[in-house]
């Protein structure tokens, strides 16, 4: 479609069509015809010529307008920017709104992908060469040690940040209608993140990885009836070996990252569609989200309107989602443009995240113990820290209870949480039961993890962490 056609075609977007017409001969280049009161300065010189060239405009459809409409156009027509809404509520800019935990998780995944791809060039998932590959990465590859360190610490941080993100969402009550399903998707993302970290744990093929994964995969054995079959499917034999390494590698570099990307896309898309959680104080006495409050105040128009009002003839011009109608009725006075307000903040957070993992990578080396030895169990043999609570629980209770019923029950409870908790309020004083129960379970999980990580030594004996450290990361 030509530029002229796009302007005159009544079915095309008015915004885009008229914006394209800006460059037409006869137009005042310093005025946007839709915003004639706002002056802007078109670029001059070579850069300006390039930006106005047909080749450039075939890639970037909109002109660069430093006007509100121009910013909106940039958001609409740019693949990366369209992830953001054009405007966001001003409260979203505040750090304490979300602590940017979801964004940091995504950033960490990006860092893990980049560093992981680099490591893949030097690693072979074979029992005979995996460990040698790790040694080569440490000593013979440019920035190999640093990249591996950053990869390792980013992986641990991602598990932590995704978990904190979930906790933050719970306390904000942001899993309530209409965000129930996005909470479920978030739980899936947490599980995929754990899977990514756990499968990566085996790849160095050292004593730490071998025995941590041995302990971790043996949990599956306790699944009633199917336990042995599932464990054999997971590790490809009756003990950790070449098939296990290959399976974990495939899961780690292909299956789980693809799954995470797909699910993350849905997660972010739903954040856009479900809208940002509304401030509690602005909602009224019930504490329900604004959408709910608006629905009560403005009941939907009956589906069957009297025909005589329309001269005996009616025509359906379009179907509008009730949520959309109520959303439109909300005040937009407090909104600001995503570009630059939110995006600049995200860039700062992205840089801060990169700085932190880089600093960790420079200061602390990722561990690499001796070559995996199936005939020598190190003391103590600990699962990765995020499973240390489970391992601690296993030393007190029957494996069926501690290894299967408790973790599966926890996951099931998290998945069903928004459907169990039907209280629409997001105000803490109206959610005492939910908050007390969640906080109690959270405290137990944290205490078990801290004990398993810091207070357990050889033979799983209780030790004081200041006497000797057996922390394995």
């Amino acid at each position, binding site marked *: 479609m030509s530029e002229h056609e796009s302007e005159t075609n009544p079915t095309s977007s008015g915004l885009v069509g008229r914006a394209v017409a800006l460059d037409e001969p006869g137009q005042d280049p310093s005025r946007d015809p839709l915003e004639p009161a706002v002056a802007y300065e078109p670029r001059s010189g070579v850069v300006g010529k390039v930006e106005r060239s047909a080749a450039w405009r075939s890639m970037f459809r909109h002109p660069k307008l430093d006007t509100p409409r121009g910013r909106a156009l940039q958001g609409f027509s740019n693949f990366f920017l369209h992830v953001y809404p054009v405007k966001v509520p001003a409260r979203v800019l505040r750090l304490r709104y979300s602590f940017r935990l979801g964004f940091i998780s995504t950033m960490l995944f990006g860092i893990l992908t980049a560093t992981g791809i680099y490591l893949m060039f030097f690693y072979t998932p074979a029992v005979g060469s995996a460990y040698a590959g790790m040694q080569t990465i440490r000593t013979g590859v440019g920035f190999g040690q640093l990249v591996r360190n950053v990869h390792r610490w980013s992986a641990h941080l991602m598990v932590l940040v995704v978990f904190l993100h979930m906790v933050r969402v719970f306390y904000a009550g942001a899993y309530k209608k209409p965000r129930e399903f996005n909470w479920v998707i978030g739980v899936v993302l947490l599980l995929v993140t754990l899977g990514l970290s756990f499968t990566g744990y085996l790849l160095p093929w050292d004593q730490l990885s071998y025995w941590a994964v041995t302990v971790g995969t043996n949990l599956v054995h306790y699944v009633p009836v199917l336990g042995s079959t599932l464990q054999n499917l997971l590790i490809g034999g009756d003990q950790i070996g070449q098939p296990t390494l290959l399976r974990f590698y495939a899961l780690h570099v292909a299956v789980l990252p693809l799954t995470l990307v797909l699910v993350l896309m849905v997660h972010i898309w739903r954040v856009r569609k479900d809208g940002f959680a509304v401030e509690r104080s602005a909602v009224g006495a019930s504490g329900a989200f604004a959408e709910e409050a608006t629905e009560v105040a403005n009941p939907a128009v009956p589906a069957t309107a009297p025909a005589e009002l329309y001269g005996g003839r009616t025509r359906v011009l379009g179907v509008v989602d009730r949520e959309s109608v109520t959303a439109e009725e909300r005040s937009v006075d407090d909104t600001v443009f995503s570009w630059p307000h939110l995006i600049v903040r995200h860039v700062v957070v992205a840089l801060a995240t990169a700085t932190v993992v880089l600093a960790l990578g420079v200061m602390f080396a990722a561990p690499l113990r001796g070559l995996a030895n199936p005939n020598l169990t190190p003391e103590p043999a600990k699962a990765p820290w995020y499973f240390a609570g489970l391992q601690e629980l296993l030393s007190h209770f029957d*494996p069926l209870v501690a290894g299967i019923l408790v973790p599966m029950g926890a996951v099931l409870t998290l998945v069903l949480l928004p459907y169990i908790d039907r209280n629409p309020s997001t105000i803490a004083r109206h959610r005492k039961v939910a908050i007390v129960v969640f906080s109690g379970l959270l405290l137990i999980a944290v205490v078990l993890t801290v004990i398993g990580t810091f207070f357990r030594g050889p033979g799983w*004996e209780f030790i004081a962490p200041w006497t000797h450290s057996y922390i394995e990361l």
Partner: protein
Amino acid sequence: MASTRREFLRNTWKVGGAALVAAATWTIFEALRPLASATSGAKIRLGNPANYQPGTATYVPEGRLFVANTGTTLLAISQKCPHLGCRVPFCDSSGRFECPCHGSIFDIGGEWIEGPSPVGMTQFPLSVEGDALVVDTAHTITGPPRGANQYLTPATGPACKPSGA
């Protein structure tokens, strides 16, 4: 009740889709099922039974197992802890198997004494072929339940397990 052509086609799609999912699931299961070569399964000749002295547990690395002489019986005991799969070494001083991971302790016959393990240690069938002891690692025998105590004797000495703090 006779169904319309549309209903018939719709149901056919559903049945076809379900069959496709079932076939895909089965195919994935078959593809991921461990190969025979990836599992244990060999028969291992262990030499003359008289080589194994009473009160000792001799490690056989190729089978990842111990041959234990309880004084009355010879047993082939897997090195794998039934709790979470750690290798359980035999402690010569105490005469017991002591798991370093979670502190499970087993007597020389692999019977549970203490710790979180739900059962005793897994065994392999032993036989005598000619004058040689042979263990069949293709088959396993679930460890004795807690409280069996058939071979339980007092510890012969101090435990190898570190005391921790």
